[in-house]
């Protein structure tokens, strides 16, 4: 909501002053960013000083490569899976936390904990737990009569397993934001509805969910851009294996740069990744704009 439609000069200046420092700070990062972009159009190798400008050469080579196209598909699939799981889950957990019962505070205090473990450590721990022969998850499964699951070591189940780990690490992020959102709903709105006899599921659908909409967009934006470029979890659990089943764009770029010294191509991949994220986010934002204009 905008305060005044016609701002006085001093107000406007104040507003500009308010976000200018932040903007300047981030613009400073633009230089390395553009350098990276430039490298994407060269054949720069890590161990050679000079490089030549090759235009879209890197991109052409990449798109001819089956592996690369597969990794685009995989990255998008991963992002979609993450969003489909973590958004509903986050809302559910937030709603559960918003109940005023005894267990709720226990859950709330636990919720921060997964966030406090660095993703690298969480990845390693889950990897150990998921180890088919010696991990505790299969041990538990077997003890209740279920067959062992291959988790990260089979090409068909590896990606889903990483989604699971990501869910454990990042759902609290979504849930905490949604919780704050739920708690900012004015109490009298809820009370009025309750007095009118609305059921809690109606309250949820008619009041809470719409109220949460901007928060959902916020979380979606963050999770989409983070999943697209997710690296640490993949690196530490499977490094792109088994047999490329979890080879996402960022992992591919990393390998090109640090294992195979082809920095030019790595930057091309990363730039491409950035472009996809950019357009995806614009798309998501447009949903927000349309909704908030209603």
């Amino acid at each position, binding site marked *: 909501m905008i305060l005044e439609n016609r701002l006085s000069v001093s107000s406007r200046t104040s507003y500009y002053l308010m976000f200018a420092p932040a903007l300047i700070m981030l613009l400073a990062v633009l230089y390395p960013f553009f350098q990276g972009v430039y490298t994407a159009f060269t054949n720069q190798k*890590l*161990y050679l000083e000079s490089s030549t400008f090759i235009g879209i050469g890197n991109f052409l080579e990449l798109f001819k490569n089956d592996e690369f196209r597969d990794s685009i598909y995989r990255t998008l699939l991963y992002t979609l899976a993450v969003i489909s799981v973590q958004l509903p889950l986050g809302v559910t957990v937030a709603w559960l936390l918003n109940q005023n019962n005894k267990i709720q505070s226990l859950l709330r205090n636990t919720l921060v904990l997964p966030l406090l473990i660095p993703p690298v450590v969480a990845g390693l721990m889950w990897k150990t737990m998921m*180890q088919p*022969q*010696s991990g505790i998850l299969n041990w538990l499964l077997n003890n209740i009569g279920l067959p062992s699951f291959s988790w990260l*070591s089979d090409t068909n189940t590896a990606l889903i397993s990483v989604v699971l780990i990501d869910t454990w690490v990042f759902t609290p992020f979504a849930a905490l934001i949604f919780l704050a959102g739920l708690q900012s709903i004015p109490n009298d709105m809820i009370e009025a509805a309750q007095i009118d006899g609305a059921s809690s599921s109606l309250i949820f659908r008619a009041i809470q969910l719409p109220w949460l909409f901007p928060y959902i967009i916020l979380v979606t934006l963050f999770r989409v851009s983070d999943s697209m470029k997710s690296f640490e979890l993949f690196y530490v659990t499977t490094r792109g294996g*088994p*047999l490329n089943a979890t080879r996402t764009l960022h992992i591919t770029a990393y390998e090109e740069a*640090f294992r195979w*010294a082809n920095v030019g191509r790595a930057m091309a991949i990363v730039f491409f990744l950035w472009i996809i994220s950019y357009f995806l986010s614009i798309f998501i934002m447009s949903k927000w704009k349309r909704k908030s204009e209603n």
Partner: protein
Amino acid sequence: MFKLKNFINKMLFGNLNYLTAFILLISASFTTAQAIDMKQQSGETITVMLVSHPFVDSVKPYIPEFEALTGITVNLDVLPEGSGTEKLLADLSSRAGTIDVFMTSPLSNWQYATAGWIEDLDPFLENPSLTDAAAYDVGDFFQGVLDSNRWTRELLAGIGEGPLWALPINSESYLLAYRPSVFKELGIDVPKTYAELLSIADKLDQGSAQYGLLTRFDKFWDLPYLTFGTMLQSYGVEMLDAEGNLQICSEESINATNDFVQLIQTASPEGAGAFTWYESMQGFAAGQYALSFNEADLFAPVYQDPTQSEVSNDVGYAPTPLGPDGYRKAGAWIWSMSINAASSKKDAAWLFLSWVTSKEIMIGSHLGGNMNPVRKSAWANKDVAALVNGWGEYPGQYVEVTSTMGEVAAVRFPPHPELTRMLDRWAQAVQEVYFGKANAKEALCNAEADIKPMLSQ
């Protein structure tokens, strides 16, 4: 000393005039009796980057000694392999020089030397004010090990000649580790050939009660370079033959690949296609496997340590199996240390490097778990000998096996800055066969086709 030299001079140069004799005398005593000035770089600070490895823990306690001896402050940067490589590459490629000395290997050095990022160490070795040649004793290193760090920077050739790019700090080779009790129970002998191994593969695997065989098998370059590489080489496969043709798709290679995959599929549990170094080590140490296949002898200290392994009383070592033609060859991994060409403190860096690779410090490191020694004097040292003597099914077994392997272990790959990429592609082909996505011939020939253009880049 003086008197003896005087005497010899009189004997040999009786007819020379005394002035010449005197000069000869002085210069002789000067070069042989002079030790170097350890404090010549006092006040400097150097940054040493090491990859997390038993070597690090074994030398850390000695570092304060070095600092006191030389007056140089040592900033020790210890990083795990992946992150360490990133950091190192960032520093080397930008020539920022924030790292002075670092841990590396011949394979990585093929890239670094091509780029001009590392110093040639020969001048330092030959400089009498920086190296006390007698005390340092370069000849004490195993020749093959030292030479593996030499390269003329010629593409695909020239290992063993040319500038010395690094000094070795340990050498790892591959062997079989087995559980004597399990083999006894099953009534089988430790296999001597790959054919024998294949024939007992079935018997070895007893399901989740006791898995059969364990090896490192994820889709990276170390597969054809080291563990599976040992098997490949024993089948007579070298990556490039004498004419410079790729042998990835050769008949021997296909046979080796098929045998390997069959072995894993029969004797290893599911999920074997994703085993990393530490998982294979842990699996065996936890007692879950009967045989560890072509695994690094680096793991032996862990297996023998009762606080870290369940099988410390039940471990034997054997040489890797013989190939179909009776060959035994093995891969070798030689951790080494180099000096950053962009460093501004090379002399101080050299003092550190020569100190850490000196006889006394090396012996100390082996006693602390850094295996295997690269100096003959270290193997001969009685404390080291006593330590490794107890390893294995019977006393001395470990030493026997490692010396057998030592005779056949070598770096048998063509030097090339992009070898890693080629080997990764090769490893992927092997994985494709294991996961049933292609047969060996297809997968390997496709890999060979992909790799061929990389050779000339």
